[in-house]
């Protein structure tokens, strides 16, 4: 028994040492990036492809601004919409001009096979279980604006706080249709069928990136360059983002 305890202790010790070594090796300047949750996958790939170390903190754009205002140490901030970037600028946590680096469109998704026979933002939604984002959150505000342009009154069975919750209700088959971003639809792959909405191009969602005041300006600008360069833009397109 004692033998095992000692061996376990040795393994633990070794792991701690390796961990400590890894940490100190990573202490070379690498950017700390606060980015909207919808950027999780492309940004992770971006760092991997460029073989650079990046410390990411992904979350809701608004919450990230709250953290920055609260003094969280970051070099770069990437927002999933214009309003939140405006707020960050107003709060004085940014350094330099924000750069628009991607766009995203709302699309209609249905579970694979489209069991309710949805054809678009039209009468086919009557009696169907539609899930959208609540108007209080950015994707919901975009949904409301889109519905107005199309001239349809949406009657959702649920208004979610996050676009991922909308997608979850559709992929699980619980809902017949949902309004999500093209990137969410692309991420869900074959679990959903995507119907494009022509009017959607009038309500493009813009992604902005900026250096954070008090952060490391060099690592910030090199990361922003990575995102806006051709390779970065191609990668974003692969994930369903539109061009800046």
């Amino acid at each position, binding site marked *: 028994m004692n033998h095992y305890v000692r061996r376990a202790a040795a393994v633990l010790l070794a792991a701690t040492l390796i961990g400590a070594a890894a940490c100190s090796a990573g202490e070379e300047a690498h950017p700390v990036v606060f980015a909207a949750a919808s950027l999780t996958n492309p940004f992770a790939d971006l760092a991997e492809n460029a073989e650079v170390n990046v410390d990411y903190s992904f979350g*809701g754009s*608004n919450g990230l601004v709250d953290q920055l205002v609260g003094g969280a140490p970051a070099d770069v901030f990437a927002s999933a919409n214009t309003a939140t970037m405006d707020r960050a600028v107003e709060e004085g946590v940014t350094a330099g001009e924000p750069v628009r680096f991607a766009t995203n469109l709302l699309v209609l998704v249905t579970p694979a096979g489209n069991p309710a026979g949805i054809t678009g933002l039209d009468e086919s939604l009557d009696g169907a*279980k539609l*899930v959208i984002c*609540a108007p*209080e*959150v950015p994707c919901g505000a975009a949904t409301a604006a889109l519905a107005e342009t199309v001239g349809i009154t949406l009657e*959702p*069975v*649920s*208004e*979610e*706080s996050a676009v991922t*919750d909308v997608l*979850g*209700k559709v992929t*699980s*088959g*619980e*809902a017949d249709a949902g309004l999500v971003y093209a990137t969410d639809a692309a991420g869900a792959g074959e679990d959903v069928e995507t119907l494009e909405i022509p009017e959607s191009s009038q309500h493009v969602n813009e992604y902005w990136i900026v250096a954070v005041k008090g952060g490391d300006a060099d690592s910030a600008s090199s990361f922003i360059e990575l995102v806006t360069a051709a390779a970065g833009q191609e990668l974003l397109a692969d994930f369903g983002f539109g061009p800046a």
Partner: protein
Amino acid sequence: MPRWTWLPFALGLTFLVVPLAGMLARVPWAELPALLVSHEAVEALGLSLLTCVVATAVSLVLGVPLALAMSRMTGRTAVVVRTLVTIPMVLPPVVAGLALLSTLGRRGLVGQHLSAWGIEIGFTTVAVVCAQVFVAMPFLVIALEGALRADSGDYGTVAANLGASPTRVLWRVTLPMSMPALVSGAALTFARALGEFGATLTFAGSLAGTTRTLPLLVYLTREQDTDLALALALVLVLVALVVVAVSARFNRPVST
């Protein structure tokens, strides 16, 4: 009690109380009345209270017999059943939601058959109550089972010997004797149902007046209107305080 325990006592209490104090410090007291009578706040509070009352009632109807049966079990059966009953209590709420979704959802184990009959629970108030009962009923069952086990059963035996039927013994002797546990268990169930969030969000959705309970509204308004979110959070704290106070009152040992 050794004197040094006062230090961890003070630290522990501080750790638990300071976050609440921090929240109270940020509540916009001046605008509080206006915020709390807003239509969406009243609607969400009404829905929360309604669903919690129903969920507590359902928990009593199903949970009391469950606790009774469990208190009579011995050995491995008792351990297995108690473990099964406790699981929903300790599950992360979002896991509880996924479990309900895979069972009662449209494509779920049971839900697909219900769906064939035209019964769909998802996105309805019934789904909210289901989520609440699932996570909250164990509190009642565990509290009551403990009390029933502690009861020697002597009074029940005497009543039975005097000719009372088993049902009469249950209503007139067993349950009145475990009334403190029953009340505090029900209060805990109500409180847990009131705070239910993850399972509701995952399984029931969020629509004003139908499925958007107070915790879901707090979560949503936090995105946009921190003041309203804090005001609503205060309401939840107050309701929780009342429930805990009621529970504590009934749970006091009978003084002679």
